[in-house]
């Protein structure tokens, strides 16, 4: 579907060599945006003029003999929960409408150093809480493959932007599947890196111990290229892993010969639709055909992931979102006392899903319930880590569906939060474990909509994970990209 003017790696190569101008690349993408953005609504903000000015600057640097970097002239869309200096950062919430951060997120700085061009800020479920991008204060994003369907979420705007060809690259954030699930539903590649590989400084926090920024791209190679740019230690994030970044893109061609692949049996049963299971098994067969040793494996604790997640994530969120109180920035609804002002502001500024999670998290942490809820969930995390560790003694990577279904219709799951939460059943375990995981398109479901398969790896196992993804991508292309 990616109707864009080519992969990021090709754009960067052409711009660096002077074969194409960054301006021309940006203009092309802005034209695609002009055509389809009104029906998709991937963006909260399109930065056409800024992008053009930045493209001209890059072209001047190339003309002067400078190398603007590995993403020279490559348009990129940023999830609107990444702080951009002087550019509105809303988290798709009324409470932050119009707020312009006085600083840039670390990833935004790294993109600038790499020569990338930010074309816009993408829509999301308010504060990244959701799986359909319907919880945005500024209206939903629609799936470019079928605009009656959701793009997934919470990074639905970023996934849709790449799928619609608005930009070859996008950044999202993934707390319980918010990159991988929309990637699957939109038919693009989405990567959640190892917790701590990419700095969270400047990512407006949802659940601090789970959040991780990661790339969207049309190809595995582009995702690897972008991940290399944003990864690496940042002294401003105490949870950032102090290790040099591995070469990722260069290792993609290594194949999967001899790689041990475990198909997670626990994620092929409960609530996963038949066509999605079939595509996952097809992916396993493709890996096997490419020389991998494929076996089924049970990782029992993953079935506890969803419950643990919906205690931990809201708990951390309830605290992270306390700062939106109308005192220092963002919305204020006036009232006679500070306390009433805070209540009025938060009540008017937050949508229902955010309120639900704040209350759930407040409850899970409150006196008398901590041990039964938050404390218990943190122990379940240990169980999940142990079960993964056991599985990774036998396997290099694990395979599962990304999302239980293909893209569902707008409004389908908004009435019942729990039904919506069940979307994250396959993706959550990697967040709780802090492990890397990615979604790779692998054909279509019975409805003709994209299906993604998830490749999981142990902490810092990005190379094996991306190699596996590249093999699946090639196998799909070999099958004619069809179902």
């Amino acid at each position, binding site marked *: 579907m990616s109707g864009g003017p080519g992969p990021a790696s090709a754009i960067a190569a052409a711009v660096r060599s002077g074969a194409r101008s960054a301006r021309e690349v940006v203009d092309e993408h802005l034209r695609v945006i002009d055509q389809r953005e009104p029906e998709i609504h991937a963006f909260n903000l399109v930065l056409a003029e800024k992008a053009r000015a930045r493209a001209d600057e890059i072209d001047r640097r190339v003309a002067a003999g400078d190398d603007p970097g590995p993403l020279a002239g490559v348009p990129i869309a940023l999830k609107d929960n990444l702080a951009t200096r002087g550019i509105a950062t809303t988290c798709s919430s009324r409470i932050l409408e119009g707020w*312009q951060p006085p600083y840039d997120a670390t990833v935004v700085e790294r993109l600038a150093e790499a020569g990338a061009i930010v074309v816009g800020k993408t829509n999301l479920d308010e504060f990244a809480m959701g799986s359909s991008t319907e919880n945005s204060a500024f209206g939903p994003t629609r799936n470019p493959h079928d605009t009656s369907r959701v793009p997934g979420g919470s990074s639905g705007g970023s996934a849709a932007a790449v799928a619609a060809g608005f930009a070859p690259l996008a950044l999202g954030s993934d707390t319980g599947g918010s990159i991988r699930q929309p990637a699957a539903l939109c038919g693009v590649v989405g990567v959640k890196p190892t917790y701590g590989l990419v700095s969270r400084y400047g990512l407006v926090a949802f659940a601090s111990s789970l959040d991780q920024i990661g790339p969207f791209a049309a190809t595995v190679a582009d995702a690897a290229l972008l991940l290399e740019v944003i990864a690496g230690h940042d002294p401003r994030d105490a949870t950032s892993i102090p290790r040099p970044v591995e070469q990722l893109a260069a290792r993609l061609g290594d194949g999967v010969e001899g790689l041990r692949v475990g198909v997670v049996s626990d994620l092929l049963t409960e609530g996963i639709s038949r066509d999605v299971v079939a595509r996952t098994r097809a992916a396993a067969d493709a890996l096997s055909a490419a020389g991998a040793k494929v076996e089924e494996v049970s990782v029992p604790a993953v079935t506890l992931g969803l419950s643990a997640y919906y205690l931990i994530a809201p708990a951390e969120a309830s605290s992270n979102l306390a700062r939106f109180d109308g005192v220092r920035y963002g919305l204020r609804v006036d009232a006679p006392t500070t306390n009433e002002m805070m209540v009025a502001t938060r009540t008017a500024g937050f949508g229902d899903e955010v309120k639900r999670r704040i209350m759930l998290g407040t409850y899970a942490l409150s006196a008398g319930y901590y*041990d039964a809820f938050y404390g218990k969930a943190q122990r379940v995390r240990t169980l999940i880590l142990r079960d993964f560790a056991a599985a990774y003694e036998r396997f290099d990577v694990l395979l599962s569906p990304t999302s239980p279904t293909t893209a569902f219709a707008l409004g389908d799951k908004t009435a019942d939060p729990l039904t919506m939460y069940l979307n994250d059943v396959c993706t959550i375990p990697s967040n709780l474990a802090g492990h890397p995981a990615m979604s790779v398109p692998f054909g279509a479901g019975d409805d003709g909509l994209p299906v993604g398969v998830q490749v999981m790896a142990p902490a810092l196992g990005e190379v094996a994970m991306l190699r596996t993804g590249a093999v699946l991508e090639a196998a799909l292309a070999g099958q004619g990209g069809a179902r």
Partner: protein
Amino acid sequence: MRAMPARITRDDVAHVATLARLALDEDELERFTGQLAKVLQHAADVEALELDDVPPTSHPYPLANVLRPDLPGPTLERAEVLAAAPSTEDRQFKVPTILGESP
């Protein structure tokens, strides 16, 4: 093992809303109570586990002693910061009457 707490009640929801500085009308209180109860019901599998001998994990990637040298870094422009604030006066952030001292 401790007794399983009852599913969340309307009073519980009203209490956490107060703690979280949110106002709920009667309809919302009703609706949110039902929805939260359902989520907590789903979490009963976790609640039921006997995990006293399993240590909690609060950080997925174990690190320790991440410290910053005591060196001054850049500060923000006061004018820029105050311009983004809902209300200011005399170089400071202005808030309505505060009832009660800080804890």
